[in-house]
């Protein structure tokens, strides 16, 4: 039996073997074992290696390495941006704008802000989980401290048109935070040019290790932030804690490799995604939740008439690893606001599947996965009462 086809890249990428190798070296190299804050040559060498990696990470997203904070992942980066700006600037305003289509890291941080006395405007994502620029423009107020929107939606892959939002925020002096966890390293991204003040992303969605991320900041943003955690003063005092040398080096190499391969991979992977889509259409009664244009190369969120998602997941799992379309890989499963906001019924949300492709997806895997999924869909439909299919779509 061949290995299962991994179509869950949107949840996490397998670590690039070149990254794993570099990390292994960093874990074994005596010169890199010291605390990077230590004054002796061991500490200095580790600190230097970290600074080089920081440069690669920053270059990937058009950020200034001097203002790129290393965190434990996009969850922390999102929280640092949202909670950090609001708490740090609470004397200047109490209004925050975000959308219901965001990742829970942003949503739950904003809910926490509401408990702390902030007012949050919750935009309804108009475009497969992403907001349209006019929605933000309409919601901006005198006292808006922060706008937080995602670049690419994690459920559908839909992309947000950031430039007009960035321009509007800059014109008004409102800080703009963008969660780019899904898009960083996959699409060209220039935080500076887009007018993004805070850009959150994570290594494990682009071939790097889990447990390390970054928040790239503009000068204004850097001055505005209150830290989430205090201590030794690392990361310009905004994110204390001993730097994890091997993790940062792994992130740095993953960033370099991502940039090198970006154009070719984007073409290759979106080609595979379309191949998967056309193969799956043979089963009939399948719809596409992901937009055909303006979408991440690797994400394909689909719905199957008359099918229940959990059973579909189980029916395919010996051959295909994917996520149910209605919930991102999170420790708790909630119905998807993103899909519902697209007009899908609760049941149609449950009929959805997120297939996500990446660096090591091959054409024959796509074909194999399509056969398995189509077979499972047919089997489940045969087992369902005849009335179901017309109701659950």
């Amino acid at each position, binding site marked *: 039996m061949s290995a299962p086809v991994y179509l869950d890249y949107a949840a996490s990428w397998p670590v690039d073997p070149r990254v794993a190798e570099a990390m292994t070296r960093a874990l074994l190299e005596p010169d890199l074992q010291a605390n990077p804050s230590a004054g002796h040559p061991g500490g200095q060498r580790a600190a230097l290696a970290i600074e080089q990696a920081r440069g690669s990470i920053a270059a990937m997203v058009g950020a200034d390495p001097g203002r790129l904070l290393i965190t434990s992942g996009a969850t922390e980066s999102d929280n640092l941006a949202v909670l950090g700006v609001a708490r740090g600037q609470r004397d200047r305003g109490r209004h925050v704008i975000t959308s219901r289509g965001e990742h829970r890291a942003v949503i739950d941080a904003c809910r926490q802000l509401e408990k702390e006395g902030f007012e949050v405007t919750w935009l309804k994502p108009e475009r497969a989980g992403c907001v349209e620029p006019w929605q933000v423009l309409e919601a901006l107020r005198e006292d808006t401290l922060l706008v937080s929107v995602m670049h690419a939606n994690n459920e559908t892959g839909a992309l947000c048109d950031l430039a007009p939002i960035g321009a509007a925020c800059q014109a008004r002096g409102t800080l703009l935070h963008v969660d780019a966890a899904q898009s960083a390293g996959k699409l060209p991204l220039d935080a500076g040019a887009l007018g993004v003040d805070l850009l959150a992303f994570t290594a494990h969605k682009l071939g790097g290790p889990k447990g390390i991320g970054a928040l790239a900041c503009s000068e204004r943003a850097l001055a505005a932030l209150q830290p989430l955690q205090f201590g030794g003063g690392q990361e310009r005092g905004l994110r204390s804690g001993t730097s994890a040398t091997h993790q940062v080096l792994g992130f740095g190499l993953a960033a370099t490799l991502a940039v090198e391969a970006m154009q070719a991979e984007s073409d290759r992977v979106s080609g595979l995604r379309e191949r998967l889509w056309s193969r799956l259409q043979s089963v009939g009664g399948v719809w596409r939740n992901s937009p055909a244009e303006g979408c991440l190369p690797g994400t394909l969120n689909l719905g199957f008439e*008359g099918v229940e998602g959990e*059973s579909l997941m*189980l029916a395919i799992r010996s051959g295909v690893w994917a996520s*149910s379309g209605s919930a991102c890989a999170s420790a708790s499963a909630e119905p998807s606001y993103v899909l519902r906001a697209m007009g899908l019924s609760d049941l149609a949300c449950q009929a959805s599947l997120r297939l996500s492709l990446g660096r090591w997806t091959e054409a024959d895997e796509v074909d194999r996965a399509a056969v398995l999924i189509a077979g499972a869909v047919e089997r489940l439909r045969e*087992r369902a009462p005849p009335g*179901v299919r017309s109701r659950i779509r």
Partner: protein
Amino acid sequence: MAVGDYCTEVLTLFAHPTHAGDLEATAGTRLHGEAAALDRSAWVALSALCRDGRVIQARWRAWGCPHLLAACELTALQLEGRPLESLARFSLNELAERLEVPAEKLGRLLVIEDAQRALAASMPATG
């Protein structure tokens, strides 16, 4: 806790159901019962072929999670050979225990109970 944690019995019943689908075209009384609770993600149809006061064949169709589908298969299995007068008896607890159904899904099994009641109610009135 994680989504997708199923005991072996659920996995087996889900993967190899022998009672999914429709009744064979054999002589006998045909009963049918159906219940749906879409808000609980469950839709269950049961059919039974009866002769000589007993169920000689039971079939199910359902839309729902693997626990529900496995429970339907088990229900159909248990219906076969049963005397008609016991048709309305349904043991939620036994099913739930055997299939290790998590608490938050117990409501779904009630839909099978409803379908089975409807099945019993579909019996032609005897005198």
